[in-house]
């Protein structure tokens, strides 16, 4: 194999790569915030709601988790375009990613809620706490803390999934890579570099989320134990 590796594109295109990485990060952070809120809300509906809303959430989760993100993104993006609704690619991407990650988040948080011993719920009831207070002060904080590692993994996976949004014209990192590749024909080197950038970003995301967890979960911080 007499292929000459050529990484010179780095000197000319490094700024584009950074722009792409930055967009990826912004897309991910927006999705984490919206996806988490939506996921927790649906988990509450799923465990506490009336039969009909509960079933609707179950269907929603089943549909989203048994179809690929790509198809969901295409359905949304091309569908909106076909009915003449102008949505910027970044917004469409965040919407598709949020819907997708919320289905997985719901299941994770729901599992967490179901591990809270019934005795605590009874005790909270007997202190005359309202349903809403019980959820927000006793149940959800513990459920989220218990399932936090699973949530971190889910959100990192989601950040990696932003890569496919290149297919709906979002200018994130993978899309930038494709553009540079079509100009310089150095596909292999380019995607090796991009792979490294994703590695660094996922490591950073994990670290950041672990840090947020260490601050938010006071008990764990002070005692060093998990619930």
């Amino acid at each position, binding site marked *: 194999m007499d292929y000459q590796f050529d990484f010179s594109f780095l000197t000319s295109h490094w700024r584009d790569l950074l722009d792409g990485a930055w967009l990826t990060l912004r897309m991910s952070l927006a999705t984490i915030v919206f996806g988490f809120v939506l996921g927790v809300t649906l988990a509450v509906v799923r465990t506490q709601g009336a039969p009909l809303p509960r079933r609707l959430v179950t269907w929603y989760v089943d549909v989203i988790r048994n179809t690929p993100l790509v198809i969901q993104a295409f*359905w949304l993006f091309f569908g909106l375009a076909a009915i003449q609704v102008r949505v910027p690619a970044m917004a469409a991407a965040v919407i598709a990613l949020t819907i997708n990650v919320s289905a997985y988040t719901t299941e994770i948080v729901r599992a967490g809620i179901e591990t809270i011993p019934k005795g605590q719920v009874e005790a909270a009831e007997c202190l005359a706490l309202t349903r809403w207070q019980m959820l927000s002060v006793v149940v959800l904080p513990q459920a989220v803390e218990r399932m936090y590692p699973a949530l971190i993994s889910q959100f990192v996976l989601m950040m990696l999934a932003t*890569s496919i949004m290149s297919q709906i014209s979002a200018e994130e990192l993978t899309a930038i890579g494709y553009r540079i590749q079509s100009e310089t024909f150095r*596909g292999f080197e380019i995607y090796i570099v991009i792979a490294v950038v994703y590695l660094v970003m996922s490591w950073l995301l994990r670290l950041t989320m672990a840090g947020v967890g260490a601050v938010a979960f006071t008990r764990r911080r002070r005692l060093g134990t998990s619930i």
Partner: protein
Amino acid sequence: MFGISIDQLLFIVKGAGWTLVLSAMGFVGGALIGLPLALARSRGGRALKAITGLYVQLVQGIPLPVIMFVAYFGISISGFDLPALVAAGLAMTAYAGAYLGEIWKGCIQAVPRTQWEAAECIALKPLQRVLYVILPQAARIAVAPTVGFLVQIIKNSSYAVVIGFFDLTYSARVVNNSTFRPFAVFTVAALIYFAICYPLSSLSYRLERRLARR
């Protein structure tokens, strides 16, 4: 029907066929890598664990589309002119191998320590212990999560669309480009994926419940 002709529907179904082929390739290839990987990561020495750990970290930290691109361009610079299926198959194998390895490592570690001791105490050699005592038990634990991961493989095979591999997603995209009926086309594609994945997901869930009950 809904602006899609029968020919176009068949076209999409043909793509679905290739999705199944790619998924099977990924699963089989992944299993061939995953089993030795699981054994190495649960019982191997420090160096072995470090190397295999690196492999897993790489796969778990790089998006699958990017792995597909690396495989695709890697093959072409090696001088081979191979169809996209090969690149996609290699990428899926690398991807599935890492994840199956981790899942199966967990299942092996879930077999209680005491089983290893008992096997040792009836004078079985290491390979025999693994083969006759540990793996059968680990396999029972592994069925549910493995079926669950198979669903992931089938869904994630859709990422092969980035290297132009003719799978269900790609064929749907092509039909959409000619009919401009995205809701209909992609709903059909979603239904096909759902029809394949949902029964497997339910099976995995039921298997998990049955295991928990015992």
